[in-house]
C-alpha cells in the first residue's frame, strides 16, 4: 500500500463509446516500437468478449487465501488481434485510377482473426430488449497488484507518492509472469523490446498537475481523477461519500483503483410491447461486474436524478454532470505535489 493513492472514476452512464480516450492514449504512448497491438486504454462493448478476448476468463488475480491464481498469456492473433494494413494502394491509390469501376473494396490486407472492439455494439438480449453499454478499461493501478506479486525480479513497483504501478524497464527480463497474473490483462509484452509494458497513468503529465490523456481528452466528461484521501475532491466524494463508484470484478482480489458508476438502463418491453418495471440490463450481470451494491447505487442515482428534475439540489448530480471539465481533476499543482 502506498502513502497516497490516485484513483479514477468512470461514469458509465455518460460514456458513448467514441474511443477518443483510446486514441489519445495510443497516439501518446503505443503507436510505435512493438506496441502497435497494445491498447493500454480500450473501450469495449459489454456484454462482450472484450479486449483481449475473454479477458475475464483468463485467470490471474488472487484466490480467497491470497495466493496467485494461475493465468493465461493471451495470443497475439486470436486474443489481442494482430495489427493489419489496409489495401490502400489498390483500392484508393493512383495506380489503378484508369479502372475506376474495377477497384477492390478497401479491406485488410491480411485476414484478421480478432481485434480490439471486435464485437462493438453487439451486446446481448433479443429485440426489442437488446442492450449493451460501453466499458472503458485501463490498468487499475491496484493496491494489491497481482503483477507485482508475480514478478520474481521485483521489476514492478508501486510509487509511494501516488500509487501508480510501473514496470522498471531496466529490471524486466521478459518472463511475462505479470501478463498472465493480471486478471484484467492490462500488462502487455513488447515483442520488439523483450520487456513488459503497461499504462503508466500518464505519470509525466500527472507530475505536472495534468490529468492522464484518456481523461483530459474525453469529450463526454466521463472520467474523474484525484487522490482518494482528498476528501473534497470529486473522486473521494463519489467513492467514499456518495458510494456510487464501484470496482470492476473486485472478486479478483487486486483492489483496483479505477472505479465505475454503474449504468442505469431503460425498462424492458413485455410481449405486448408494454413497458415493464424490469431494467434492460439484467441486474445479475451488473452485480457480477461491479458487486452486490449495484442495486443500491442504481436506486441512489435514480433518487438524485429525480431531485434534480424537480428543482431540488443534489450534490451527487452536480458532481456527475461535471459542469466544468477542470473540476473533474484534483491533482494539485506541481509545487503542491512536491510537498507530499
Amino acid at each position, binding site marked *: 500500500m502506498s502513502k497516497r493513492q490516485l484513483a479514477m472514476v468512470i461514469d458509465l452512464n455518460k460514456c458513448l463509446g467514441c474511443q477518443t480516450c483510446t486514441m489519445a492514449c495510443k497516439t501518446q504512448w503505443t503507436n510505435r516500437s512493438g506496441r502497435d497491438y497494445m491498447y493500454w486504454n480500450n473501450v469495449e462493448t459489454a456484454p462482450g468478449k472484450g479486449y483481449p478476448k475473454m479477458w475475464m476468463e483468463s485467470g490471474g488475480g488472487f484466490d480467497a487465501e491470497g495466493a496467485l491464481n494461475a493465468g493465461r*498469456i493471451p*495470443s497475439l492473433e486470436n486474443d489481442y488481434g494482430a495489427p493489419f494494413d489496409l489495401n490502400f494502394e489498390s483500392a484508393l491509390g493512383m495506380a489503378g485510377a484508369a479502372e475506376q469501376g474495377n477497384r477492390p473494396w478497401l479491406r485488410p490486407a491480411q485476414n484478421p482473426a480478432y481485434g480490439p472492439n471486435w464485437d462493438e455494439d453487439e451486446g446481448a438480449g433479443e429485440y426489442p430488449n437488446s442492450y449493451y453499454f460501453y466499458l472503458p478499461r485501463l490498468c487499475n493501478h491496484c493496491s494489491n497488484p497481482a503483477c507485482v506479486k508475480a514478478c*520474481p525480479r521485483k521489476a514492478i513497483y508501486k510509487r509511494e507518492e501516488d500509487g501508480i504501478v510501473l514496470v522498471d524497464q531496466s529490471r524486466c527480463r521478459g*518472463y511475462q*509472469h505479470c501478463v498472465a497474473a493480471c486478471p484484467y490483462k492490462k500488462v502487455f509484452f513488447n515483442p520488439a523490446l*523483450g520487456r513488459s509494458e503497461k499504462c503508466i497513468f500518464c505519470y509525466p503529465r500527472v507530475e505536472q498537475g495534468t490529468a492522464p490523456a484518456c481523461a483530459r481528452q474525453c469529450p463526454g466528461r466521463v472520467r474523474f481523477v484525484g487522490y482518494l484521501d482528498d476528501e473534497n475532491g470529486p473522486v473521494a466524494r463519489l467513492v467514499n461519500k456518495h458510494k456510487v463508484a464501484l470496482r470492476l470484478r473486485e472478486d479478483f482480489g487486486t483492489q483496483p483503483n479505477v472505479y465505475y458508476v454503474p449504468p442505469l438502463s431503460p425498462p424492458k418491453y413485455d410481449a405486448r410491447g408494454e413497458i415493464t418495471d424490469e431494467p434492460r440490463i439484467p441486474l445479475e450481470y451488473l452485480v457480477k461486474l461491479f458487486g452486490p451494491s449495484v442495486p443500491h447505487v442504481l436506486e441512489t442515482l435514480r433518487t438524485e436524478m429525480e431531485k434534480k428534475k424537480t428543482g431540488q439540489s443534489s450534490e451527487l448530480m452536480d458532481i456527475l454532470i461535471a459542469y466544468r471539465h477542470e473540476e473533474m481533476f484534483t491533482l494539485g499543482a506541481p509545487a503542491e505535489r512536491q510537498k507530499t
Partner: protein
Amino acid sequence: MKALLAATLIAALSLASVPPGAAADRGMEELKKQSAVIGARFVKGPLPIDPSDSGWDGAASTTLTLYPQVSVTPGAAIAPRISSLTVRALYTNTNVALRLEWPDDSPSLERGIGRFVDAMAAQWPAKHGKGIALPYIGMGEPGAPVEIDFWRAGGKVESLVAEGFGSLGPRDAPNAEVRAEWKDGAWRVVIIRTLRFPPTAMMPVAFAIWEGSAAHRDGAKLLSPWSFITFENTAPDKEYVHGLLWNPRGQPDPAKGRQVMEEAGCPACHAYPGVETSNGVGPDLTYAGGVHHPAYLRESIRKPSSFIVPGDGHATMEGKKKVSVMPDSGLTDESIRRIVDYLLTLH
C-alpha cells in the same frame, strides 16, 4: 611480434610448473564418482568459437544430467524432463572455452507474446578455493555471488552476476563470448571466457538450459549440479579436492538415512520417491542428490535458517530475523550424514 613472443614465454613458463603424469590422486577418483569432472585440453592457438570447428574433435567429452529446478516457484515441472548435456573444454593460459551440446528436436528461435526461446547459461562462483563453500546452486546466495554467462537464441551473450534468485543484474566487466548453432536435432553452443588461472587448478561450473517449447524461462529451467573443470597441464590441489568430497572414508548407509528421515518426519513437507503424504511446503527432493552438492544438503539440515531459498512460505519472521519454516531437527551429525547418504542416491 613482441606480444606473440611474450605470450609464448608465459605459456612455456606455466607449462613447466607441473610435471606431466603427477601421481594419480585417489581424491580425484573419488570426486569423479561424486561430481562431473570436465577435463580441459590445452591448446596453443586461438580457441575455436565456431561450434563446428575441428579443433573440438580432440577434446574429451563429459556428459552431465540436468534436473528440473524445483526449489523456487515458478519452477520447472517435476515430470521426467531430464536432459543430458555434453560438455567439451579447451583452454589457453588466458581463456577457457566450453562447447555445450544438447538434443533439441524443435528449436524455439523466436520470442513473442507467450513464446519463449531456447537459452543456456554457465554459472561460475565469483570466489572459490580451499575453505570456500560452493555458492547455492540456484544462482548463488547473499555473500556468495556467481557470475553467469547467459545466452538466448537469437541474442548475444549477457554477462551477469547474481547473489540468489531474483537478484540477477549486469556484470561490470563482461568477459565472455558465445556462438551457437542448431543443427541435426541438437544445439551446440561455445562459450569462451577469460580465465584467471585458479591456484587450485580446478574451476567449479554449473549449467542451465531453458527449453522454449516447454515455456521455460526464469526459474523454469533444467539445472546441472556444480561440476569441475580440470586443466590438462596442472594437477588440482589435493587439499582442495579433498575438501569437496563427501564422506571420503566412511561407509555410506542410505537405507539408514531413509529410515532416519521417516522417523524425523521429513515426509510431512518433502516429497521424494515412495512418499505420498507430503503437503508440498518443502522443496521436492526427487532430484536432491542430483542437483545439490552434499555439503549444501548437510548444512540445510543442520542449520535450516543459514540460507533460505526466496519465496512465499519458506520462512517466518522472528523479530527482524528470517527463520526457515523447516524446524531444527536436533539430529546428531551421524544421523544427518546418513540422511545425506540417502539424498545423494536421489538423482
